[in-house]
């Protein structure tokens, strides 16, 4: 089994992905997924999120185990720094999504990746969240992602893989395009 997995290009099961695409084309309902997280306040700005179940392929699904994530704020915010800030998790999500896309697209195009590293930077002006200047937005002014990729391909082919990964990235879409957010309080 281990041998089979390592034999896959970039560790990506391209055949399974293409097979899923074909199968789901005929079953639009199975393609409708719901992702979930549960979040619980601990103390101060510290909270813990847990992720385990999601819905897809027409039924409830589970990750192989439950994942837990602490979020907090650094000490210069007079907090205890029990975990990354929520905005840093946004960067984790974006990088995770783009890199997964790069590996998959490269595998599909027969490009072997030797290493892929990305550094991300997001600019934010605290005048927004602190309510100092109403012209300053709360969120990032912009995000920069810098990839260093060592692969068996030309510069153009690598650029095309990175561009295609953005085109098909869920998190890139969530960040670059408006999304409706509904927050309710259960009585």
């Amino acid at each position, binding site marked *: 089994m281990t041998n089979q997995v390592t034999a896959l290009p970039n560790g990506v099961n391209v055949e399974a992905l293409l097979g899923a695409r074909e199968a789901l084309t005929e079953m*639009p309902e199975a393609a409708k997924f719901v992702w979930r997280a549960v979040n619980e306040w601990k103390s101060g700005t510290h909270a813990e999120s847990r992720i385990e179940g999601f819905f897809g392929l027409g039924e409830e699904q589970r990750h192989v185990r439950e994942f837990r994530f602490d979020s907090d704020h650094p000490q210069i915010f007079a907090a205890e720094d029990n975990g990354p800030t929520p905005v840093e998790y946004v960067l984790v999500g974006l990088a995770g999504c783009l890199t997964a896309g790069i590996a998959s697209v490269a595998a599909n195009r027969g490009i072997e990746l030797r290493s892929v590293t990305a550094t991300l930077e997001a600019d934010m002006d605290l005048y927004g969240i602190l309510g100092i200047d109403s012209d300053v937005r709360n969120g990032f*002014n*912009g995000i920069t992602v810098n990839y260093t990729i060592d692969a068996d391909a030309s510069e*153009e082919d690598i*650029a*095309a893989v990175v*561009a*295609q990964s*953005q*085109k098909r990235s869920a998190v*890139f*879409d969530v*960040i*670059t*395009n*408006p999304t409706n957010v509904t927050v309710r309080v259960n009585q």
Partner: protein
Amino acid sequence: MSFLSHIPRRTAGAIDVVVIGAGHAGLAISQLLGSRGVEHVVLERGEVANSWRKERWDSLKLLTPNWQTRLPGCAYDGDDPDGYMSVGELVQFLDDYAANTNAPIVTGCEVTSVRRVAERYRVITSQGTWNARAVVLATGACNRPSIPTAASGLPAELTQLTPFDYRSPENVPEGGVLIVGASATGLQFADELLKAGHDVTLAAGEHVRMPRRYRGKDIFYWMTRCGIHDQSYTEIEDIGRGRRLPSPQLVGSTDLPILDLNYLRDRGARIAGRFMRAWNGEIQFSGSLGNVCALADLKMQRLLKLIDETADRDGAPAAETFAPTCVDDEPLLSMNIEDVKSVIWATGFKPDYRWLDVDVFDRKGQLRHDGGVVDGEGLYVLGLPLMRRRKSSFIFGIEDDARDIADHLVGYLTNTLRRAS
């Protein structure tokens, strides 16, 4: 074997083939059916080339050079082979073709329903009912403008135009104009509105960038020469995507080496990302402009590289280079609705088959067909993008498609006749 006797039948009744639409596609298949002795009629809601007469803007010229413009048995023989036909010239070309091929056209004949009845198609029109053994849908791919649903969020008092309403900069109100779409249509509108002094913002999603001329020839010369235009729909990996591609950023003119976002930006247009929604008094654009420009640049470079292989062998002049698309460090993400006086939707077109009462549509309302052979016996379509070949949507591309469809259709008529006897 009634279909072997070629008697044009222009009054309603039983017939072998009804062709719906007398544009270039309908006229082409009519010529081929006629030469094969197939009894048929061409039903046209208006006049020959109706959409070209009524649903196009003033400055429009064909994207294909004149030397390439041809229909079955008829090539361009005017004195400007490197020019591009205006709409008026194309209408004349199609009128002449209809007359020369003696096409059995019924004009002013609106089809209101096509239904399968007793192994035939009942075609109900404003001029009676035809009962046909086969039907060719040649109504084209551009019957209605395609407008994103997010458009509904715009205030009602804002002037909104589609390529069906837009004629020239004169019918655009003064003040800011937002052009949505970066296809040939959107870029041509932006160019002429800038020239007329309008304040232009262009919202660009995925687009196809290419120069008008390259290495001494029209880009279409090279695309044909390299076999791209003849590439079959069966060889294309993601045919759905190929068929959705916007038209290349071209204009029927050699005044500019390349009509692209850089050119418009230099002339003062603001380039924003894809139109997303109107919200809270603002129009919002996608933050993905950088990537859609990078994709378009990469694809153009790939196309030019492919052309270079042939052009080098042909000893063509040296390759021109084109600067990467310049994107602002912080492209526009939103603008006040108040700063926009009009919006032009250059977001493509869609066919209109509301009169086709046959179960041949997929879940998105698109015709189910395999290279123009519709998933319904004896039903065919022509003139859709990438229908059988890359060139399918161009005037010169119809001939090969129409020939394949005519052959299939004759086979169908022969077989059904044999089965019946």
